């Protein structure tokens, strides 16, 4: 992740990994997050979305579902999962008058 997201904020924490018991993971199942095939990538993805002011988060999520449904044909049945892992991020578009 780029530096901006990890720049100092009070709630940023640093962790040290501790090993309890060494264990190997098998390559025959599962997939590292960065290696997922596109369909899996979309189903296990988040969009950091700049939501426009006006439409509700629900509406925007519905649009996105539709947009991606058209795209990844064959995944329409699993949109529930997509919906779950999707987070709609932003509150409103930039304030206009004040600046």
């Amino acid at each position: 992740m780029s530096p901006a997201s990890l720049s100092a904020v009070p709630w940023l924490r640093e962790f040290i990994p501790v090993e309890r018991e060494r264990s190997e993971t098998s390559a025959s199942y599962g997939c590292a997050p960065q290696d997922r095939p596109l369909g899996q990538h979309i189903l296990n993805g988040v969009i950091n979305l700049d939501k426009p002011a006006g439409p509700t988060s629900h509406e925007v999520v519905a649009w996105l579902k539709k947009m991606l449904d058209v795209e990844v044909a064959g995944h329409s049945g699993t949109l529930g999962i997509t919906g779950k892992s999707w987070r709609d991020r932003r509150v409103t578009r930039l304030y206009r008058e004040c600046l």
Partner: protein
Amino acid sequence: MHLCGKEYVAVAELHRQVGHEELSDALGMFVGEIYQRPPLRSSVARRVRKRTVYYIEQLEVEDRRALLRIGCESGTYVRKLIHDIGLVLGVGAHMAELRRTRDGALVEQESFTLYDVAEAIQDLRASKDESKIRKVIRPLEEALLLLPSIYIKDSAVDAVCHGASVSIRGISKLDSPFAKREPVVVKSLKGECVALGRATMSSELMSTIESGIAVETRTVIMRPGTYPRMWRSHGARGR
């Protein structure tokens, strides 16, 4: 996600003008631990709650309007915060506009608009070019970067996918430090998010204790069946 700190930029509209010093003093009173009763129209019980406000920065003040940057704990109502600041100032205030600029590891600078999403989909459809869509849609693990992770063995993954708690013996590695009751991310050794849960003990204890339940599973993210089933249900026992 509703677990990490948030940052907002908000416009506070005071109902009468106050001096700079007065405003700064009032804002200062709301930094640190604050007590807040959720507003009438809210989706949680209206009990007074304790929340931490990390900082309030005055970006700009013009007449009765103040543009503020507020960093706070998740579950803080900014609209209410500004209302309460108005009460302390004795002039009243309301929140005119609000924008979230940071949520856990996700920041405004790295956000995408609906147009970006549409364009990425267009690219994919027209030329099978995945690069844009992979930029716009990120692995969900990135959104959870600020929470401690607990890495479990392959043999424990499917049980957790079915909602089981994580047992000490299923753990291979863990991030330290965290406290008892803290939210944690349960991951496979490949780094995939399996579930979100709550630690039943501190990281210190979790790295030394020999057996027991380590994490109560709250939200399962990975689909059951992704990893092979290596556990037996009670009904199957003794057969």
